[in-house]
């Protein structure tokens, strides 16, 4: 059995103290130790993006990050998007546009978009398509995912008075 470490994570606003193996990936820590199973695993080698979460607000592939490396950081997963009032705008757009079929890629797509939208320069369809192309989906053919993300990116931009042309974080 490999070495163990005590780590501290903020997951969706809640503090967690966890004893993890040195080789345990962040996605395994989130899914199996924290119990946040919304984040999925489909390759474990950094290509598919199903495991995308936000680390300190930035999209990251949690299968490529070790739990110990995330020590002291703030993690957001798909479970953080909706609140008591219901789905957030991105989730709403995904269901309205039929951007999911089996739903396996969906948590990763949502977190990719949630973290990626603030970085978009002009929210054009081509720019959104490039953002979405970071993750894989086998069911939808992507068009409806691009539709939903484009819609929300433009909406959020139009509602945010601080955004100026070409701004990025």
């Amino acid at each position, binding site marked *: 059995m490999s070495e163990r470490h005590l780590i501290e994570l903020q997951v969706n606003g809640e503090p967690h103290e966890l004893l993890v193996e040195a080789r345990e990936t962040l996605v395994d820590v989130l899914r199996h130790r924290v119990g946040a*199973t919304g984040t999925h695993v489909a390759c474990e080698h950094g290509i598919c993006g199903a495991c995308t979460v936000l680390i300190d607000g930035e999209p990251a592939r949690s299968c490529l990050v070790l739990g110990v490396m995330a020590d002291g950081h703030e993690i957001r997963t*798909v479970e953080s998007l909706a609140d008591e009032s219901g789905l957030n705008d991105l989730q709403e757009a995904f*269901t309205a546009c039929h951007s999911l079929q089996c739903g396996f890629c969906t948590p990763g797509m949502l977190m990719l978009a949630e973290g990626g939208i603030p970085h978009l320069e002009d929210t054009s369809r081509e720019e959104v398509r490039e953002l979405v192309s970071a993750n894989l989906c*086998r069911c*939808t*053919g992507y068009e409806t995912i*691009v539709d939903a993300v484009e819609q929300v990116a433009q909406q959020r931009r139009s509602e945010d008075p601080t955004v100026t042309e070409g701004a990025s974080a």
Partner: protein
Amino acid sequence: MSEPKMSRDGAFIGASVRRREDPRLLTGAGRFVDDIELTGQLHAQFVRSKVAFGRILDVDLEATRATPGVVAAFAADDLVMAPIAALLDRPFEQFRPTEMPVLAHDTVRFIGEPIAIVVARTPYAAEDGVEAARVEYETFDAIVSTDAALAHGARRLHDGAPDNVFVDVSLFDTPGLDEAFERAAQVVEMTIDSGRQNALPLETRAALAEWDERESQLVLHTPTQVPHLVRTATAASIGVPERAVRVIVPDMGGGFGLKCVVGREEIAVAAAAKRVGKPVKWIEDRKDALTASFLAREQRYVARAAFAADGEFLAFECDVVCDMGAYSCYPFTAGIEPLMASGEMPGVYRLGAYRVRGRAVATNKAPTAPYRGVSRPQYVMLLEQIMDQAGRQLRMDPLDVRRRNLITEFPYTSINNITYDPGSYLESLDLCEQMVREEGWFERQAEARAQGRHIGIGFACFSERTGYGSSAFAARKMLVVPGFDISDIRMDLDGTVTVTSGTMSHGQSHETTMAQIVADGLQLDISRVKLHQGDTDRITYGFGTFASRSAVIGGSAVQLAARALGEDLLEIAAHLMETNLDNLELRDGSVHRRDTPDERLTFEEIARVAYLEAHRLPKGVSPGLHATASFDVTNDGTFSNATQAAVVELDPDTGAVKILRYFCVEDCGVAINPQVVEGQARGGIAQGIAGALFEEVTYDANGEPSCASFMDYCIPTAMEMPDIRLAHLETPCIYNETGAKGAGEGGTIGAVGTILGAVNNALEPTGTLLERTPITPRAVHAAMTGGTR
């Protein structure tokens, strides 16, 4: 928020009702097999063959068992598991029966074949245990092509198949075929090759099994398209009664056919769980999913087609060889690809004479399962290239060659003895061509050509038999004959309805569409209906979801069950309201009197009587509200159809194919939920494009597969996918209850041939014809520069 939309006449059928599965899947509350955690759960991984073909001399698991965290390790001899046998009722010349052991014992036949199962306290420790295993082999030369497998004196993979042929059928052989070739104005010759693909559901295969001592039952959670077939195969293999296995399918991350066969790992996990007395979970990793699960589509078609001067399709002769890999899959058998191809050609075209030979050949590769479309993407690609080539040779517009031969009168009994129900073959072609024309693509192509750019436009016309009933599968001579489905419906005390279906949604939105059918059938709000699926204890039998059968067959069973329940409600209401049945109707979740429409009994009021005041029920009516119905398709099934078109541009420097525009006109009869149908079309087309341009698993001379990760098996991203312009025609199915035809596979079936046709159209000035998918940039570049491919 999710206000249900009503269609024109206020019904749910035909409306793009928001998907009821979405809220949980969007919030991370979906539950997939790996999300289930059972108390005391252990983790399994498999020791897999490192050689493609060989005899196992020794399996040494001592170091494995001594590995920290490992609880147990079992090789074939350590667990009692009968082999899986997928059989056809055909004579030996046509079908050679072979078996697939759950764990390989004396022979290994492909790299990745499971040899032993390791059970450990953590997934990491299970992998450590696998690493520690030692297997000794006597290695044979790997057989990695059908030519090598069929060569005289080739070593046989299975004793039962002495010539390495699983299936060999010769069909039709219409009298006069040879003469038709002699008198033909043009003969088109074509050889089409299709690369080996992985269906690649994003969720890999998985199993979580637990022996429940209290129920004397093994509970197996697994993402399968065919829960009851997994139950049957597992019970037979581990030697327990059918009722001692309960298969539960939670949320499922896609299947596309790969999960409609029974995997040996599911059974091994079940047997191991029973032995260790603890829950055992196995989650397939991506490497195993790519190399050791099920693949598909490696086929060669050698064809000749005879045409009259006016374009009439006179005769067609074809030899189909399918590389099925090492084993025959359960329940479909290795016949799945050659029988589909031989039996269903010539598709949408009238034809004078037909002769076909279809063979399934054994090689040292991972075995084949059905994959979305099964052979139809390949033979449609063949037939559409033939139509285009006939146009070139006859100097006719290739679309007119198609028009000359498309079936236009229905029902139509084809040369292949299949009777086609009404469709819109010609209309879909006309509309699709019009859409391409409206956007000016023909002119743009001419201009581009004049500037030396390579733009091509390709079309594919096709139909897809959906809703194969028992008789259609029986005609294939399967020993396990899928076909019918059963639905069970009940109304609870509060008037809410639970409907159970033997179908198994894994992205197709059945929780929404089946509820739409019930809501219309009973005239109540969709929020009062819940679909239950994926639990073999909840329904006696069912064949799950594959071959675009669920809406056609499962949907009809659901509708019949709803109707039966509605009749029970009316009968009780007639008694309580002291009137006769003709005076009553179902409306807004109530039974209304026609003569005094304000007088009504709500379903809740009726249900209360049925359960809590049974003494008020009419004589002879038993308490409770519950009905069961089944549905089968007794004729040849129902055919969806479509025409697709693509505009592509070839990059002269790199040979890359860029899709500029994509069109699809589809007709799946009554669309229960148009948005869902469009989703199936778009997703299906994406998978067809993937096969046409990007994906292939190749094997080296030692039988080592080329793809072990997403680095080498490149599935398309959003950057490679075009936006698709869709249009719908509606020719309802006249044989079933809903009018719906299947919609699951058509997108894929047409897309491969559409893309190849477009690329070949672009290459016309070079005089080169590509006849292989995936179409690689190298092949395109060679064609453009006159080099060899």
